[in-house]
């Protein structure tokens, strides 16, 4: 119970810090809107390809916009954490008698909040431009929960980068690491229509399975055979990354 209370204090502090930087929030929402603008309208013709699974390209794209936003949020997380390490704020927390785990929880919880805010904002933009969610309200909720978990998992990657390297250079450029995770997917084109090494690489990327599941819920509804693999991959990846982040964090703070 004490851990929960302590992590709430730290979470509220992190939340205030985030809200005190409105540019970051506006940029997050704006980047999603820009995705639709750049890729949605101009690439609309792709739906005409034989075998393309959706009639509405904007709807097809929505999963990509959401997943990409949460994947790259891992890099933001790394920067947020590194800023606190560099300023000595993390030391200040470590000097207090709070449980180390509370600090970690408060940090991961803000990652989750940022992911939720971003996903909800994208869903609002999507609805505004006429995307229909075939999975219904439950589908929307499932998408929010799943991608938030993905956001936390990516936040863990960010945390490991920040704690391990403690380097601004590396952390600022950590988006490079997230790029293959986000782009080696069927984000723009279904896997069946992709060929060669790219198709092979896509098959190895865990984010791909999560993306497919999210997209299925959006464009087809509850088609379990496309959702279940993504569900397990998400669960497995999150468990491994949260475990690793906890380990790295303990190592760094002891």
């Amino acid at each position, binding site marked *: 119970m004490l851990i929960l209370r302590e992590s709430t204090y730290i979470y509220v502090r992190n939340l205030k810090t985030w809200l005190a930087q409105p540019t970051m929030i506006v940029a997050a929402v704006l980047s999603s809107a820009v995705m639709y603008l750049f890729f949605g309208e101009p690439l609309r013709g792709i739906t005409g390809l034989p075998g393309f699974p959706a009639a509405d390209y904007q709807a097809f794209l929505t999963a990509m916009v959401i997943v990409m936003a949460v994947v790259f949020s891992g890099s933001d997380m790394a920067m947020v954490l590194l800023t606190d390490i560099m*300023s000595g*704020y993390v030391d200040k927390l470590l000097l207090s*008698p709070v449980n180390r785990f509370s600090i970690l929880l408060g940090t991961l919880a803000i990652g989750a909040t940022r992911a939720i805010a971003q996903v909800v904002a994208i869903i609002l933009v999507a609805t505004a431009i006429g995307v229909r969610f075939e999975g219904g309200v439950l589908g929307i909720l499932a998408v929010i929960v799943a991608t938030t978990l993905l956001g936390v998992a990516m936040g863990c990657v960010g945390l490991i980068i920040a704690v391990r390297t*403690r380097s601004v250079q590396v952390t600022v450029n950590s988006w490079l690491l997230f790029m293959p995770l986000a782009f080696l997917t069927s984000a723009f084109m279904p896997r069946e229509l992709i060929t060669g090494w790219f198709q092979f690489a896509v098959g190895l990327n865990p984010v791909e399975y999560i993306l497919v599941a999210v997209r299925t819920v959006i464009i087809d509804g509850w088609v379990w055979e496309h959702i279940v693999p993504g569900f397990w991959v998400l669960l497995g990846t999150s468990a491994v990354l949260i475990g690793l982040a906890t380990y790295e964090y303990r190592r760094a703070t002891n």
Partner: protein
Amino acid sequence: MQRQPAVVVQGLEKTYPGGTRAIDGIDFTVEQGEFFGFLGPNGAGKTTTIKILATLLSKSGGHVEVASIDIDEDARSVRAAIGVALQEVGLDDLSKGRDFLVLQGRLYGIGRAEANRRADELLELVGLSGVGKRKIGSYSGGMRRRIDLAGALMHRPNILFLDEPTSGLDPQSRLAIWEHLEDLNAQGVTIMLTTQHMDEADRLCRRLAIIDHGRLVTEGSPSTLKAGVGGDVVRVSFGPMDSPDGRADTALGALCQLPSVREADTTPDGLTATVDDGGAAAPAILRTLNDAEIPVANLAVTRPSLDDVFLHHTGREIREADADEDAESRVWGQWMGVNRR
């Protein structure tokens, strides 16, 4: 019953990954209610020691007890018992001053109402009541140190560790911090601070340890340390004389007979004498000169400073030592991937 010391350090050692030996076996004790200073140049091992005592950094060897708790056994109870303000400050620029204090209190387990009340009280104490609702990022250097100090006091710790609390501050802000610290110490708070400023150590600390290259060089009260270096120096300049021949030498011979004078020598315009106590020796010196019919234009007594103490024990001035390669920063630089000097 004898009170337990606030801090006991025995054989403390710290070697950073990479082999830099920051602390090379030091022992000291800080009694309860004491104002204890750790004096030394940059890279001497002061910050490393404070960080180990505050449980932020692990030690490589030795035994440390803070508030009668072994830091290896129960670091968390040590953290709850002490207040710490580090040189790197670690303030949250985006947070408002008062919010920072309240959160700090909550993290130490203080209830909401009490934390609010205490925050207001401390803002008042450190003279920041007017700016409690402003973001810390807008504070000046002196205000940042004061809010940091207030944060370290939220849970009313009995032991306070301060790492260079006034470095980089203007004289007015330094004085304000000094006064707060003196008040706290008068209320019974044990304070251990690190400093590279002789005047700070001299004014605040009842007892000092001088540290250089990770070793304790000497320890004692500022006055004992200064007395250990040598006596006071009395400088006399002579006034105009009709027939000066030989009279200075006569006076010198007479001075050397005085029991309070350890040694004396002539200078181009007078003489100097090294004595145990300048104040007590001055009248006798004047009388002797008067008997020798030597007019005195000026007499000055200089006491050895802590600078002289440092020079005496290390063979260097503390400022020269500063210019040495800074082992501590170098380690941090590697660790943080940036140069933190």
